[in-house]
């Protein structure tokens, strides 16, 4: 049981490091897309390893934690995708001076198809 405790503590620590990096990224990054990247990617990994660590610390809760992890794995990329798409449609510009906008072509062709 001692080894489970160490594994759980390691995962909780890892999760908190990732959540901290995500918060730092949201504070520091220049535009909305970079902030989304920092916020969602790190919170996915951070929350997942945090829940996994709690599952190791309390083995009775492991099944529930895995269910929550699956839910986060499905819902978090979806929400970040929808937010980024909404931001692009609202016309929020990129930060960089020399823009590399790979989505533009797809977006234009999709617009033509819809209208």
């Amino acid at each position, binding site marked *: 049981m001692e080894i489970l405790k160490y594994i759980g503590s390691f995962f909780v620590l890892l999760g908190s490091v990732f959540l901290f990096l995500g918060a730092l990224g949201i504070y520091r990054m220049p535009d909305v897309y970079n902030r989304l990247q920092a916020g969602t990617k790190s919170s996915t990994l951070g929350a997942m390893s945090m829940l996994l660590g709690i599952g190791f610390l309390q083995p009775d809760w492991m099944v529930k934690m895995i269910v929550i992890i699956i*839910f986060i794995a*499905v*819902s978090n990329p*979806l929400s970040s*995708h*929808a937010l980024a*798409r909404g931001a692009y449609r609202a016309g929020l510009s990129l930060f960089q001076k020399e823009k590399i906008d790979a989505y533009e072509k797809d977006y234009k062709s999709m617009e033509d198809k*819809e209208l």
Partner: protein
Amino acid sequence: MKRAFILLLLVVVGWVLADTFSQINFGESRMGDIKQQETVGAYYLNNTVEKLSVANVVTAIVVNYRGFDTLGEVTVLFLAASGLASILYRRKKRGEHDVMILKNSSQLLQTGAKLIFPAILVLGAYVFIHGHLTPGGGFQGGAIIASGFLLMFMAYKDYHVSHNVLTWVESIAGILFVSVGIWGLISGATFLENILGTGTLNDLVSGGIIPLIYIAVGFKVAAELTGVLETLLNFKTEK
């Protein structure tokens, strides 16, 4: 003359309010000692678990001790929803179009919404069925279910819920709530008296009428909030 009358009215209202507030000792601890049953809060905290075998004291207060108040709250929500619907809802005329959602969302979001939607419904049902055992209850579960429907409205622009079905669900849930109350009257107790056996603590079927009422409230709130969302999203405008 009119101004003097208004001033007089203000003085009267102010005097009544000041008189009322001066009798309340603000800042005084009204809970009292938890062990001595001198206050109503201490009574709830000390007696709910033994007498009703309900783990969630908030639910016991909302549904059991103050069930009539909850019936009023549900009625207020119903009136708000039907008022909104009566102002905004009308059939589409020629040349009108939906204003809110003009384009379909991406295929990724549509597939994901289809995947998550049943899970949200199950979570909402879990929250209101276990209202007497875990934190949560009818209002919260209904709001969760309505948020699932909001996800579907956002993902699919042609997704509609029939107003007839919503009205039927809402009416049947309301009738269930009131008839549980009248059942108490018929069996010789007061309106909304907890007449069923309370069972053992932490069983799903325990707490008497509390799960019944919270299931009714959950369906009612879910139907009402979904109706509000449906009405707001299908607001028609002249082109």
